[in-house]
């Protein structure tokens, strides 16, 4: 009985290690959802582009709120480094290599795109823009 409990513990520990290590290379689940949505929004959608994502990440917009002209205003120029909110609090790095759990939760991902696209661009982002953005972060 004791042995089987110990085996079960060992197995679950092993599984946790494997699962914990996996997301660093795996694509976030949200990308699939955004790909389906992008296809529905635009039948000529031909896949996400990390390059377009980087352009979006670095672009400055005059269409949003004056305090937040760009993603990099708060997230910083290097996605592998922590950003900082305007109130001074640290923001976990955006790059998937450093923050492997990012973009895994669709509700959380949507919440921040909803808020931040409105703050920075002054409008909602399209599914393609969101996917491009995450595609860029998976390369970082």
């Amino acid at each position, binding site marked *: 009985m004791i042995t089987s409990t110990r085996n079960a513990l060992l197995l679950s520990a092993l599984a946790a290690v494997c699962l914990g290590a996996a997301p660093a290379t795996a694509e976030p689940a949200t990308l699939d959802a955004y790909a389906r949505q992008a296809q529905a929004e635009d039948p000529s959608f031909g896949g996400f582009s990390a390059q377009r994502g980087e352009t979006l990440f670095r672009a400055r917009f005059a269409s949003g*709120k004056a305090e937040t002209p760009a993603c990099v205003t708060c997230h910083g120029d290097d996605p592998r480094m922590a950003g900082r909110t305007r109130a001074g609090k640290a923001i976990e790095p955006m790059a998937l290599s450093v923050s492997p759990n990012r973009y895994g939760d669709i509700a959380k991902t949507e919440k921040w795109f909803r808020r931040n696209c409105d703050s920075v661009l002054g409008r909602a982002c399209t599914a393609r823009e969101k996917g491009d953005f995450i595609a860029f972060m998976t390369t970082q």
Partner: protein
Amino acid sequence: MKRLLPILVCAALAAPPAMAGEHYPPVTDRLTLKECGDCHMAFQPSMLPARSWRALMVGLDDHFGENASLDPETARHIEAYLVANAGDVSRSRGFFSWRSGKMLRFLSDSETPLRISDLRCWKRMHDELPRGAFSRANVRSKANCVACHKRAAQGDYEED
């Protein structure tokens, strides 16, 4: 003298901070800690009156220059917590809780401040700081209490 009085009383309240310290009951609501704390320390609700919290929660689409909107259910929960623990509400609960509303002394009923740092008491407590103190790289904002008050999240605002 009449104009000086509030400042003097406020100064007296804030005067022996190294010993007595400024204390505000810390936030205990999990959702409030999480959602407000995503961008800044979840400020103690007793630092503003209930009407201020209501006004803030109505305006989350443009929260000091950012969209900080929440789903309606979460927003309702957080607003109820903030209002129930607001400075003017908790102060009326009895003698032993009067201190938790001290940030609101001399605030007139016609004012609805949206920033704690706009309160006269707050300004008086910070007026000895050099110009530019809040724009230093490690501070950045008057909303960054923890930059100087290391135990601010626990409600302790001793002068560090």
